[in-house]
């Protein structure tokens, strides 16, 4: 096959793959503008991708009302922003200390951090639930934030990132009389922007979609995050698919926007950090 033919073939294959990845999302968007009955009845043909009968924003306003959307949306934003914001500081400081500073127990801590990466959170969920109940912080924001700030995977990400950064700039800063804190804030942190961007995106992905832990530690809608809201639609009949799709779209859109805005940094960050192994 000549080069041109190969290109056409590759485009065809890649477009098919794009269709595979996109059709559920397109289906969600289209269905979110249809009447509830039309979502089901029209789902067995190409009509699935035609938004008729068009009901405008009706499903969206329904979904917002039924699932106290504004409340759970606010909860999700607050929880994720706290986890990621505090996590950026805590994990990068620890990663930096382990990569650059000499202190007793450093090697042991590095080994421990790597060992902690393979402990799935789920294996800790039950004792953590018990401990939270004992301390009396069930049904709060804290119980959904505190356990996830420090993350061994992100500590390791910063650790390997800093190992690969030449020390010369930091030494120059130290000769100029800057202390460790000054050096970190004005020299090290700006250099580590790709690592911060990677952690921010991954951290946001993890925390925004969390389901297991909130199911275990929250009861009422007051502090519950978005993903749990979808359960309200599935369990309280009648199942209104238009509303569900509208809710799913509203849950997904903020992440899509964040990703599209920052994706360049993200790919570069993965490339320059230890995540790729």
């Amino acid at each position, binding site marked *: 096959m000549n080069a041109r033919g190969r290109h056409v073939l590759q485009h065809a294959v890649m477009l098919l793959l794009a269709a595979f990845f996109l059709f559920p999302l397109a289906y969600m968007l289209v269905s979110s503008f249809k009447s509830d009955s039309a979502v089901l009845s029209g789902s067995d043909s190409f009509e699935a991708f035609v938004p008729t009968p068009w009901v405008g924003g009706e499903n969206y306003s329904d979904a917002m009302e039924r699932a106290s959307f504004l409340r759970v949306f606010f909860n999700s934003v607050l929880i994720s922003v706290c986890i990621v914001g505090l996590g950026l500081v805590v994990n990068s*400081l620890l990663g930096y200390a382990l990569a650059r500073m000499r202190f007793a127990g450093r090697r042991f801590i590095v080994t421990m951090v790597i060992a*902690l990466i393979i402990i799935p959170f789920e294996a800790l*969920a039950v004792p953590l639930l018990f401990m939270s109940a004992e301390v009396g912080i069930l049904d709060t924001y804290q119980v959904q934030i505190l356990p996830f700030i420090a993350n061994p995977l992100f500590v390791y990400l910063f650790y390997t990132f800093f190992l690969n950064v030449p020390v010369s700039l930091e030494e120059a800063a130290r000769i100029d009389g800057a202390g460790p804190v000054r050096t970190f804030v004005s020299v090290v942190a700006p250099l580590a922007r790709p690592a911060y961007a990677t952690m921010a995106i991954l951290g946001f992905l993890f925390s925004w979609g969390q389901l297991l832990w909130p199911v275990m530690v929250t009861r009422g809608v007051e502090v519950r995050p978005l993903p749990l809201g979808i359960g309200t639609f599935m369990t309280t009949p009648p199942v209104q698919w238009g509303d569900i799709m509208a809710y799913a779209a509203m849950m997904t859109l903020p992440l899509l926007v964040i990703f599209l805005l920052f994706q360049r940094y993200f790919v570069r960050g993965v490339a320059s950090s230890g995540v790729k192994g």
Partner: protein
Amino acid sequence: MSASRVRRHGSAAAWLFSAPGLALLGLFMVAPFLAAAYFSLTNQRLISPLPTRLVGLENYAAVLGSGSFWNSLGNNVTFVVIVVPLQTVFALWLAILVNSDIRGRVVYRTLYFLPVVTVIAAAAVIWTLLYNPRGLINAVMETVTFGAFAPDWLNSTTWALPAIIVVSVWQGVGFQMIILLAALQDVPDQLYEAAQIDGAGTWQQFLNVTLPGIRNGLIFVVTVTTILAFRLFDQVWIMPQTPGGPLDATRTLMLEMVETGFGQQQIGRASAIAVIFFLIVLAVTVVQRRFIREEGEVS
């Protein structure tokens, strides 16, 4: 300032930098882990009037003696054995495609990654509707197979797990693709040029240059995918009509643990499941690492 004071100063800064992270990791990972090990030897319940007492290995005996546990483990193993190779090979193929010099590769890369950005709860609900017996997937199936194959996916003990596997791969493969893409871009061009001069074809270049070049990336992807696959919970909780259904065909260890510890409030027994789960994941990770490393050393 004397040398020893400089060192003490540096060491104080090191502890200042490390303290928040270490404290949080200790409190929310190490402590619960030790607590799980302890609880698994007791009859601890979430809320109970009875005093807690040590019961030895009773919980482990109860867990290992229950059919439900082995059924869940079986489902987990099936899921891992299918998803890990499938997703890794698929991700590598996607990474190679978007790493070629074709026009629009950044757009393709972004599109392939979008499911990763979709909240799993939302994805599970969308796919539940797609898998509806009279839904879109069966419409396609009926057309392709002339009506011969159109199961009620999520209500079939045979097809529920494969259906969930498709959703998991759809949702997760883009992440692995990005990691492998980064690894591919690190392979020096000179190696390919040298191979071409030696007369190596595309396939030989792939085997002798690409694969060894991205070995670390592949190891990372296989390890992480395995751990994530063992943790399967969200999909089997949302998608079937009852969590883990039909007839426990999609029940996983995580679901078993959550229902024991949370639903039935048996903290002791759920902790035993957690410890067993951790040991399984640890064993698989260690074996995998050793196996892959030895293979690498042979070549």
